[in-house]
């Protein structure tokens, strides 16, 4: 018995940290979402859907689109690192692609703000190259800017996971397909990607959840409506002290993130069965 107690004692600090700093605040927020002036009710949610339905859809669309683009980009990077036959190009890509991972979201927002604006570097370059007249230049500082920021920042992370998984698959399975005449693209799509599907899914889900919680990028790049839920939550709390609606928005974010995790859990259970 004392041995068992000792074991419990050892995990207790960790358990306490999780309970008091994570689970308890979560429960309090969840409960708070249903509290309207000391009574329980749906008031906060009614208000949330009245004011922010567009933003919820906006968030889901932006994050989903970004996830898809991140998936495509990271498969392309991982695929080239695995199947590329030009050693110098592979080495350069291997060295380059991870850099955005070490740049904080706020800095990404800052960089892209100056890059994507109407008079930003991108448009200036296009104008100087004669591809664009100054009159046709438009600012990308809207939903497109957010998607670009997310994809730019999150692709290296997913690509890192995917490239690692691709490097560890049995090379013979690739050569067996080459032996039968598979082209490079078919090798990637039909042989390599299916074998790293689980890793890719995990990376994309982690990215999805990360993007759901980014505040700086929508604030920096998209200072207009509709915007993302994180900006709305910050606004409710900072401008109105309205914790009820903020909690409701938070809970909705949690449900969105949770549903993705659920899809992953189901897929992984099916894989094991």
């Amino acid at each position: 018995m004392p041995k068992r107690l000792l074991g419990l004692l050892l995990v207790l600090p960790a358990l306490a940290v999780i309970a008091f700093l994570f689970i308890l605040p979560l429960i309090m927020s969840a409960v708070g979402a249903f509290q309207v002036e000391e009574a329980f009710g749906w008031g906060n949610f009614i208000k949330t859907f009245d004011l922010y339905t567009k933003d919820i859809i906006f968030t889901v669309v932006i994050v989903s689109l970004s996830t898809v683009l991140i998936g495509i980009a990271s498969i392309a990077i991982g695929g080239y690192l695995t199947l590329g036959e030009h050693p110098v190009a592979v080495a350069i890509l291997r060295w380059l692609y991870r850099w955005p991972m070490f740049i904080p979201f706020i800095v990404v927002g800052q960089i892209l703000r100056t890059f994507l604006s109407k008079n930003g570097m991108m448009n200036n370059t296009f104008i100087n190259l004669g591809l664009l007249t100054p009159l046709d230049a438009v600012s990308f500082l809207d939903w497109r800017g957010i998607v670009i920021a997310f994809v730019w920042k999150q692709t290296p992370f997913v690509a890192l996971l995917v490239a690692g998984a691709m490097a560890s698959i049995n090379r013979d399975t690739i050569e067996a397909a080459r032996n039968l005449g598979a082209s490079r693209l078919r090798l990637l799509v039909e042989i390599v990607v299916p074998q790293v599907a689980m890793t890719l899914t995990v990376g994309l889900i982690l990215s999805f959840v990360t993007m759901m919680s980014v505040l700086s990028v929508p604030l920096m790049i998209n200072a207009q409506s509709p915007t993302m839920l994180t900006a709305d939550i910050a606004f409710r709390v900072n401008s109105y002290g309205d914790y009820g609606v903020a909690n409701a928005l938070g809970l909705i974010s949690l449900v969105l993130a949770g549903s993705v995790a659920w899809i992953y859990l189901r897929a992984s259970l099916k894989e094991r069965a």
Partner: protein
Amino acid sequence: MERDGFLELRGVASHYGATQVLTDIDLSIAKGEFVALLGSSGCGKTTLLRLLAGFISPSAGEVKVRHRDVTHLPPDKRGMALVFQSYALWPHMTVAQNIGYGLKLKGVARAEIANRVAAMQSLLGLDGLEARKPQALSGGQRQRVALGRALAVDPEILLLDEPLSNLDARIRLTVRHELRALQKRLGITAIHVTHDREEAMVMADRIVILNAGKIAQAGTPEDVYNRPASAFVAAFMGAENVILLNGTLEDDDFSIAAGTANVAGNVPLAGRPLASGPVEARFRPEAARLFEAGEIAVIGPGITFRGEVAAVSYPGGHWRHVVRLGQTEIMADGTQAFEPGTRVGVFVPAEALFLFKSPEAASVSPISRASSGKVHA
């Protein structure tokens, strides 16, 4: 069999970085022939197979199929299919998808693929397993799926990279015969890489023994077993007993002078390129005949050694003796056991005694060390 020209290698060489892996490989393989590439690990046999398959380009020389130069063609344009040592089945595809993938790549119609896959399954005894994933198959079944995948595209040449090495010892014996029977039935040309001497012997029409990236000998199993071209081949084919002898050339005979451990003997030259002077003699333990020192030696061409039994063990079927002959030890099998310490004679008949021009006297010694280790195993 069109001996010349079906699959030909001319002066093929390959290097990996600064290391020369293959040097000057010349080989001509007939249609329908089963050739085993035999060698210890690192001898270049897998490199040679991958070079044939088109995964690596030779640094020199050319590979021809039916007089057509395929040296720089991509893997799928050579009419060859490779069966990998790891099988390399695609884990996300079912058995049927694995077997049919090559046909799908060739743009064969779906119904036709289904027919060919079903035919391949019944040929290989995989009926009813089409919906299984590779993880749900036994080792033997996986091996057959890998074979089916290679055969489905109807290759002219089947390349086998140690396909049996991952199987249980017992299954391996039956698969050897199945594979060989299948190859004969389909009339397909097969090149089989292995490090297993017995496997090569029972499966192949011809054995090509590789040593340090060069062909040490190529011939029928009987040839390489009974007429090894070099001391390396003799040792690789089991003649691990090695002794240095002195002899002189006398017409068609090679007469061996009496030494510290052997009495004088005479063996027919039989076309061997020997010169008077020191020679390296090799023989298999099972070729030796043991008798007590007092007995009269067996009459016939050959050579008799005299020594003392150092150890005896029973590996099954016969008694294996370690016999000390002066400085060296040899192994000799006998139907009866001689106690350690017994003075014995060891007779090796001429046809089982392999003589080679002696290299440096010093470079011969390591064999006896290896053999004494085996006795205690």
